[in-house]
């Protein structure tokens, strides 16, 4: 079974978000980039399924410029077999989805996994676009994934519950917890990652359909109003009369 796992390169979870003075771009200065946390579920589950099957390959794919390579190497250190980087700035979800679909089509992958969304842009879009471009089913967001031959059984989260879905390969799934326990690279992984193949390819086309014109920070909070614990009940009156939320 050939797994393709898409990873994105995002600011570390704890990053304080700031923008360039014209508010047109995210300010990367001093920011540490990590593999998107949701993508780690996809990556680890693909590696686990490969191990269970005792055969197959896990390829990681990133659409990004050269500065994403440390995180691609990290994915290789966690256990992916090889990697592809599409050498382009990921302009928008549609652009990224086109690159992924093109690689997936040429590579004949059976299972395409990615995280539910990236924690920078929070799009939750790429999975469906890739599925539609390839004409194959998408299951999003998936909380569980098991394979038996060419058939996958997934749990998909829906509001108020979950659906158990069976699809045949090829398919796309976007992953979230509690799918697996994401792995961290060990020393051996880090050593072998250096010699694993990382192929760089140029993008196909440059079509995008959205354009960010400006970023904004949310308005600053007024500061907390503290109510003494002894008169906790007063809080409820404030919530009704002042905040008007109950």
């Amino acid at each position, binding site marked *: 079974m050939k797994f393709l796992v898409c990873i994105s390169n995002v600011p570390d979870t*704890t990053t304080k978000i700031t923008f360039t003075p014209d508010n047109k771009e995210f300010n990367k200065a001093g920011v540490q980039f990590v593999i998107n946390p949701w993508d780690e579920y996809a990556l680890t589950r693909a590696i686990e399924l490969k191990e269970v099957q005792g055969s197959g390959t896990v390829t990681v794919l990133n659409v990004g410029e050269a500065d994403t390579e440390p995180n691609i190497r990290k994915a290789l250190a966690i256990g992916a077999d090889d990697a592809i980087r599409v050498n382009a700035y990921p302009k928008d979800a549609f652009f990224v989805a086109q690159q992924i679909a093109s690689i997936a089509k040429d590579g004949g992958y059976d299972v395409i996994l990615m995280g539910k969304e990236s924690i920078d842009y929070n799009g939750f879009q*790429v999975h469906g676009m890739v599925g*539609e471009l390839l004409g194959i*089913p998408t299951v999003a967001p998936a909380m569980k994934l098991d394979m038996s031959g060419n058939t996958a059984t997934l749990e998909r989260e829906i509001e*108020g519950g*979950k659906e158990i879905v069976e699809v045949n390969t090829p398919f796309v799934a976007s992953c979230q917890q509690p799918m697996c326990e994401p792995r961290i690279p060990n020393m051996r992984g880090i050593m072998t990652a250096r010699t694993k193949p990382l192929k760089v390819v140029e993008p196909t086309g440059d079509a995008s359909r959205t354009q960010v*014109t400006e970023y904004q920070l949310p308005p600053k909070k007024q500061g907390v109003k503290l109510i003494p614990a002894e008169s*906790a009940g007063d809080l409820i009156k404030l919530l009704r009369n002042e905040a008007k939320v109950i």
Partner: protein
Amino acid sequence: MSVLVVVECDKGEVKKSSLEVASYGSQVAQLLGTTATAVAVGEASEASLAQLGEQGISKVLYDAEPRLKDFVNGAYTKLIAAAAQQEDAKVLVLANSNVGASVGSRLAVRLQASLATNVVELPKNDGGQFTVKRGAFSGKAFAEVVLTGDRKIIAVKKNSIEAQHEAGKNATVESFSAQLSDVDFADAPKQVVLQDQAGGILLPEADKVVSGGRGMKGPENWGLIEDLAKALGAATACSKPVSDVDWRPHHEHVGQTGITVSPNLYIACGISGAIQHLAGVNSSKVIVVINKDPEAPFFKAADYGIVGDVFDVLPKLTQAVKELN
């Protein structure tokens, strides 16, 4: 040219988030000088669909095919695309839900449309440039996005638009068929498992949430959270470590790696307010924090706070709500 609104229904009723979406869609239609039609998915009653007139919808299309009761990505996508073609829809509006994002992203390719998810405000249409504001960086920022495509799809974040209500107006309900075949149901669910909802309120839909963290000490103490939630008509939630150790089910975990919520009221009990937790709740309108540690980071994000022991404070709050009602 029209605006098409995708309305999700459950057990005969239109979901609250879909009422917001319907309002949003009718306001977009006004902005563009056209009308808003809805297409309904899920299990809907004719009466509840007709009531969408109160949100400004003129017509509702409904396919009564029984297999559409549960979410099926392939079939929903085809149905909505067919409705969009029939109505010549230039703008589609749906909820930023798991269903909305799943079909919205497929539709964006099928209809060659620009897609914006997580949208928090009505669009601006300046000289033909169509701009929406969306949440980004896990609630830490917003982005203004121009939708450059001919067609636009907007997924509206829950609780960011107030559902309008003009009593007594009715929409006409028309039966609609997208000629679905077995192939379209290839990803139909084998089974649907519904969660136990405290008080029947779904966390992603809730406009009030009472949430507990490790400070609650153990699952046996959750009665305190449930009592307050019940009195307020709120859903219950928890922090990640709480669901990791199985004090509470995973579907209650909010935050970076859990559910994102944006209720009007979020009450955090014994939660430190780590940045990953805040990522899932910081767009709540009013945040209340109860923590015995005055230095807990959550107080910085809070509107109201009580420095105190949850075991002492929670019963007092529940009592006060009961007295109010």
